[in-house]
């Protein structure tokens, strides 16, 4: 093998990745158009495009730009940040089973938001909500990494994630239990289910800054994840400040997941599934997986949110319920596949 062979092999792999990313982007664009077209009034993709850019009838414009666009933006952004958070956590922990929802981050964020409402500190559309959600999510991910420590064995990670999400769930139930106001209980139930229905641009404005900040932080750490392939010690010897990296990832995940949960409630398992769907296409390099995983997350949540509107049912299916119904069996499948490693105790 020579320098030319080297460059050639790298180029072939790069072209494959580029092709996959372009295809994925096209899929996301298509899903965005479908998502904008679906509802009580069905609009064709062409009508949607026309309405988006100020053409077509006034009614179509109002439906697309004011009623459906916020929902679609949120599905895109939240699916994206969940996929990105999953890929980043898997990179940090060198572990294909890591994801925000398994570690209790959305559950903790939901608790933070619920607490603020139950205490009557803020109404549903204030910035206090995402801030509380972010603080709680930060606390949960920080606690998890503190318990699991440097070696991050699979068993310890999953057990402590289970403990943290159960604790967050119990704390939320306690708030529900103690609140005398039935509206608060209703509000909490909404957070536990996770939905994108009836979201306005106000919701977008609340969530988006935090989601973008989280995404920027996580993407800026890409190459450090690659060095971590060799383990923490070797990565540090290559010049990666592992302690700082860990803090960045916790902050990025907390900002993104907290911001997302504050407007939609808990939507689980996208962060787990998205990187797995991308590995066969993109490869296992944790740095290269970040952007495709975000796109896959967007596609998944957009598709799930389209599905809940299409599936005929007497009452509305919540999108968070749907992602969990699909995500949990997938998680079980992953456990089956990783059984050998799990049985060994250490990843």
């Amino acid at each position, binding site marked *: *093998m*020579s*320098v030319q062979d*080297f*460059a050639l*092999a*790298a180029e072939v*792999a*790069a072209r494959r990745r580029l092709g996959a990313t372009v295809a994925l982007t096209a899929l996301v664009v298509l899903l965005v158009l479908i998502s904008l077209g679906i509802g009580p009034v069905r609009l064709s993709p062409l009508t949607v495009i026309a309405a988006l850019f100020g053409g077509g009838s006034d009614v179509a414009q109002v439906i697309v730009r004011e009623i459906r666009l916020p929902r679609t933006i949120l599905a895109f952004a939240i699916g994206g940040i969940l996929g990105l958070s999953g890929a980043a956590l898997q990179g940090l922990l*060198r*572990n294909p089973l890591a994801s925000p929802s398994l570690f209790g981050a959305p559950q903790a964020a939901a608790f933070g938001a619920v607490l603020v409402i139950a205490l009557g500190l803020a109404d549903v559309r204030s910035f206090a909500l995402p801030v509380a959600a972010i603080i709680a999510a930060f606390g949960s991910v920080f606690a998890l990494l503190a318990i699991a420590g440097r070696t991050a064995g699979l068993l310890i990670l999953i057990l402590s994630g289970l403990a943290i999400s159960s604790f967050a769930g119990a704390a939320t139930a306690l708030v529900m239990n103690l609140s005398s106001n039935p509206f608060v209980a209703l509000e909490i139930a909404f957070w536990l289910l996770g939905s994108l229905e009836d979201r306005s641009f106000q919701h977008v404005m609340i969530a988006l800054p935090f989601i973008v900040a989280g995404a920027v932080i996580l993407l800026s750490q890409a*190459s450090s994840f*690659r*060095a*971590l*392939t*060799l*383990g923490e*010690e*070797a990565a*540090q*010897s*290559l*010049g*990666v*400040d592992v302690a700082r990296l860990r803090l960045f990832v916790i902050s990025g995940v907390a900002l993104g997941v907290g911001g997302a949960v504050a407007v939609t409630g808990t939507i689980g398992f996208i962060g787990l599934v998205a990187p797995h769907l991308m590995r066969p296409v993109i*490869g*296992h*390099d*944790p*740095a290269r997986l970040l952007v495709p995983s975000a796109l896959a997350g967007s596609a998944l949540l957009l598709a799930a949110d389209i599905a809940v509107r299409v599936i005929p049912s007497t009452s509305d299916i919540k999108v968070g319920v749907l992602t969990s119904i699909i995500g949990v069996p997938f998680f079980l499948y992953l456990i089956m596949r990783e059984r050998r490693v799990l049985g060994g105790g250490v*990843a």
Partner: protein
Amino acid sequence: MTLLSATHLNASLGSRHVLHDISLSLSSGHLVALVGPNGAGKTTLLRALAGLIPSRGDIRIGGDALSSLSLRERSRRFAYLPQGHMVHWPLPARDIVALGRYPHGATDPARLSPDDMAAVLRAMQAVDVIAFGDRRVTELSGGERSRVALARVLAVEAPVILADEPAASLDPRHQIDVMQRLRGVADAGVLVVVVTHDLGLAARFADHVLVLSEGRLASQGAPVEALSEAVMAEVVRISAYRAEYQREAVIVPWADV
């Protein structure tokens, strides 16, 4: 010429005081074997020398105090090979070796500068892993994987290589192969420090042996002197068959004492 020196080095892991007042001075072009019983502090000493864990005392590398160097500068002076050749994701061997250029700013193996690519190729040639550059490291045999790990360390092209048991869990042929390649690197002017439990390999390949016992430097010097019968009895707590073969020292552990 002294390249790496430590004076009154002390280090703790949690509340346990692991290294006690270690002073040493190592020269470029030498292969140094760091030996001692389990728990003597060999790995801790290696980590402290590379600046991977905090320590007290003075470490100097090429005239500079280690504490005055940034993480990036340290990473260019020390190539560190941890125990076990751990690779967490099934990346192609070529990408793993390319991580050796990370300290030089080449963080993406698909976008290496011509200089970085040449360094990667040199390293892969030196340990003969070019043939399986495209294969995933997880699919390689133990011997092949240890060579890929070695190539990654060589690709840093650092003046100091610190290797923690690079030959452990390999068959005798591959053990000798790895040590011979490290010997060659040292002969080319690099300071190579190797942690090993194999006194035979230490005696055969090292210029200088450091014997560590309970966090203290029990003896050091040329293999035959550092691993004298007295040291073997007191520190390693074994007797050994000692001889000379093809003008190299032979030490074969024989019985406990």
